């Protein structure tokens, strides 16, 4: 039952990644693209943790923690660049 639930959740988050990719391709504004990239990072964190459960190892927590931190910093840096034309003033 856990295997079926894992497959279902992986399919859901993978489909979500496709939706985000669509929004990145067609987004009318740069704010849409930043939002889609941030959502992609969150979906990839979920996929990493699901893969770690699939393999039965806890190694992927460190990887997802790093992805979360890098994703947050990159989203904020991208927003700062669009807002002010510079990242660190």
């Amino acid at each position: 039952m856990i295997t079926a639930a894992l497959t279902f959740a992986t399919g859901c988050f993978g489909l979500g990644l496709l939706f985000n990719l669509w929004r990145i391709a067609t987004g009318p504004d740069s704010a849409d693209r930043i939002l889609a990239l941030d959502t992609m990072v969150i979906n990839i964190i979920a996929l990493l943790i699901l893969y770690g459960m699939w393999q039965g190892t806890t190694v992927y927590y460190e990887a997802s923690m790093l992805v979360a931190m890098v994703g947050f910093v990159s989203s904020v840096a991208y927003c700062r660049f669009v807002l002010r034309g510079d990242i660190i003033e």
Partner: protein
Amino acid sequence: MDLVSEFLISFFLVVAGIFGLVGSFGMIKLRDTMQRLHAPTKATTLGVGGVLIGSMLYFLLVKGMFSFHELLITLFLFLTAPITANFIAKTFMQANLHQSDLPGTESEYGWSIYQDPPERSEED
């Protein structure tokens, strides 16, 4: 492993998958950027929280080891999602809205994206 723990883990995983899918589907379904801001920042964050709870229960109940990392990731995501949403809203407002479209702030200072920060007073 007993049936109850298996059912509990599967429930959390399925609910997390549905929330994640709804959050990403809102990205293509909703019409406006400000509307689209709602879907990923709330539903997808909740979906990742569900995955992390399911993973914690899995390693606790099935593998028999307790790991604290998931709570750390959940806390980090729940702290950073509003900050990112606020920055994206500011980016959208700066690019698409004029100051005359917005109501007044009813305070001494105006909107922070249109006005420079106030001068620091000498008493501080």
